[in-house]
């Protein structure tokens, strides 16, 4: 019976103990506050119950007391706030060298694609002990990628990327839920996170991979004709994209932005919005022409040519491109609006 009746969720990520520690701290603090109030209530209720002939003693109030019971809770609240903020900052800051998984949510399934090219639906295989960063977007409404055992959750929005990360600590299978109501089969938008030992994971990874995502992205880059303007050898009509990712970019309107995933995405779908200084607005928009998966692949490609040193970027991407493996990056192209 008790096996079927757990009262505490499993702890399976590095984040989970931090959240649980704060939670337990709060349970103790609020438990003490509750006890204090309840004991006072019950004691007063019993001790000062109505007795014939005994009149209530009128008390006007007490400013020192009011100040005390405003200040002490406030200080306690500030401790909770600070602690909560620290945990949140860690949750929201993916380590730099994380493995990346692209997530596309749609009514009502999760489509996941590893940087190595493995695709999964409603299932995510990850190794123990490695930082995994999820780069997520939605094809339709707002969803939310929630893994209770990891204590992480992040809404997945249409039209932009949101990011969350985790490092699994314990092999096993854990729930994946959509936590933001998304329509009829919202409760069917569930899946499994399979955490494996690294060796097992390597074995799983080697079965049926279709080549790295960045290679897919490179193919799309060529097919869409991006490479005619964004040349890798010299500055073409569009900016040379080598080494751009993660660096600050000077915009035409004087602002400077960091070339992160959302920026690259926006440049593909809405090139006019944040145009790079010194280039003409000649790039057409690819909104509606590329699927979410293809955008993800392009982003992965552009990241890959920035990850290595600019000099050997071309070589890296060339060697990583297994020719002819991938026919079409989009398995269900009909969904492209």
């Amino acid at each position, binding site marked *: 019976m008790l096996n079927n009746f757990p009262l505490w969720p499993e702890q399976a990520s590095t984040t989970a103990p931090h959240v649980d520690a704060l939670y337990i701290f709060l349970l103790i603090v609020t438990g003490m506050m509750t006890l204090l109030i309840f004991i006072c209530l019950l004691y007063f209720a019993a001790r000062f119950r109505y007795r014939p002939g005994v009149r209530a003693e009128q008390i006007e109030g007490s400013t020192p007391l009011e100040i005390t019971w405003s200040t002490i809770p406030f200080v306690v609240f500030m401790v909770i706030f600070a602690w909560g903020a620290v945990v949140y900052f860690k949750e929201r*800051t993916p380590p730099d060298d994380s493995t990346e998984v692209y997530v596309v949510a749609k009514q009502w399934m999760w489509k996941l694609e590893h940087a190595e090219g493995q695709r999964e639906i409603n299932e995510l295989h990850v190794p123990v002990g490695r930082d995994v960063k999820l780069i997520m977007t939605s094809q339709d409404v707002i969803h939310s990628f929630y893994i209770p055992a990891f204590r992480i959750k992040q809404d997945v929005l249409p039209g932009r990327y949101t990011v969350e990360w985790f490092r699994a600590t314990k092999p096993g299978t854990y729930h994946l839920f959509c936590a933001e109501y998304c329509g009829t089969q919202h409760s069917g938008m569930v899946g499994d996170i399979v955490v494996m030992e690294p060796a097992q994971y390597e074995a799983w990874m080697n079965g049926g991979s279709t080549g790295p995502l960045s290679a897919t992205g490179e193919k799309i880059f060529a097919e869409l004709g991006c490479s005619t303007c964004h040349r890798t050898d010299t500055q073409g009509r569009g900016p040379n994209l080598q080494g751009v990712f993660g660096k600050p970019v000077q915009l035409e309107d004087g602002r400077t*932005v*960091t070339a992160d995933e959302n920026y690259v995405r926006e440049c593909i779908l809405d090139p006019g919005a944040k145009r790079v200084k010194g280039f003409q607005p000649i790039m057409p928009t690819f909104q509606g022409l590329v699927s979410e998966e293809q955008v993800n692949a392009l982003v992965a490609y552009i990241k890959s040519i920035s990850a290595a040193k600019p000099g050997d970027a071309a070589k890296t991407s060339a060697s990583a491109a297994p020719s002819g493996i991938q026919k079409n990056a989009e398995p269900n192209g009909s969904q492209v609006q």
Partner: protein
Amino acid sequence: MSDHSKSSPLPTYFAVFIALLIGTGLTVYAASLDLGPFNAPVALTIASIKATLVALFFMHVKGASEKLTKLVVIGALFFLLLLLGLTMTDYATRAWS
């Protein structure tokens, strides 16, 4: 709005009226100049001056009316600024590594 026995308010009304028309002309003229980043602030400052004139003199927030009216006006503006300002804390700081 209770005490109307004072001298005629008409000169004030017409002065405010003229000021409002001048303000309108001014803001249209300012819009045709290139003031760099200052076009929007200039336009909104002129608008705010005009709105204040209307509230103070035409709506009698100044002088005749009691403190409570002023409190309502200031309160409404305060909550409007809360809505705009706190929403902007999100939009102005979206970028995060």
